[in-house]
């Protein structure tokens, strides 16, 4: 059935779209700030996947260079984000994302 099929960029892009949609749903549904961060990582990975797929399609290394920078920014974002989560949860151990609606301590 699929034996003759070739893996085209469309397959990767559809997979990336599915991954992005799952991550988007997760951010909206979950209320634990840590799990929301993980869902943001899912969305970043979906975008990385499509960047590499386009790099392969267009035979251009710049897509992969962009993914490198996305990785660096994602690492910095996780470090700062987890720092904020630690600072909030240390004060109120059972806080979820809706408790932090007011930017007050």
């Amino acid at each position, binding site marked *: 059935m699929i034996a003759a099929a070739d893996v085209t960029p469309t397959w990767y892009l559809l997979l990336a779209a599915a991954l992005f949609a799952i991550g988007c*749903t997760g951010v909206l549904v979950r209320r634990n700030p840590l799990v929301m961060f993980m869902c943001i990582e899912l969305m970043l990975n979906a975008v990385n996947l499509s960047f590499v797929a386009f790099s392969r399609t267009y035979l251009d290394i710049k897509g992969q260079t962009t993914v490198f920078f996305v990785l660096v920014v994602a690492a910095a974002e996780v470090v700062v984000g987890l720092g904020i989560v630690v600072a909030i949860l240390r004060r109120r151990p059972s806080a979820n994302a809706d408790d932090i609606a007011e930017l007050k301590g």
Partner: protein
Amino acid sequence: MIEVIVFIAASLMVIGGALGVVLRSNPVHAALSLVLTLFGVAVHFVSMEAHFLAAVQVIVYAGAIVVLFLFVIMLLGVDKVEDLRTEPMMRQRYLGPLVGVGVLGLVGTAVIVARGRTIVQSVEGLDTVGHDANVKQLARSLFSDYVFAFELTSVLLVIAVVGTVLLARRPNKGLQAAREKAGVNA
């Protein structure tokens, strides 16, 4: 044939792990599902001949970032199951998946409609000769065209480190008392 099998296996890892992140109510299980997804993406990178990014994906994402998540979970002891019944915004729990399906439908339709459109290939092309061609080409791009951005990332990382240390630091009690005694408003 083999590419199709690899694609399907890795895609099952990616989607299964992603669903695990969203659906498992225990944060530790969610973090471990995230590892599965990140490994699946790394396998996709290998099959698209982005070897360097696959290695970095495993080392930085599956290695460092997920371990950081697990550290924070254990440090704060928040590894208890999320109570799904206490929900301040009741409707959001049902509208969220709807938005997800909408995003998937929109992007999926765009991808399917646009498939096989004209492709303008770059003049450079991707180097595939030699076992380290991908790394060399990526390095050449990074240290010639994007060297300024590359240097700026070091500034970003320093700012992130300093900011995190400031955020996570407990306020120094002795210093605060000394400041109050001296009448300085911190």
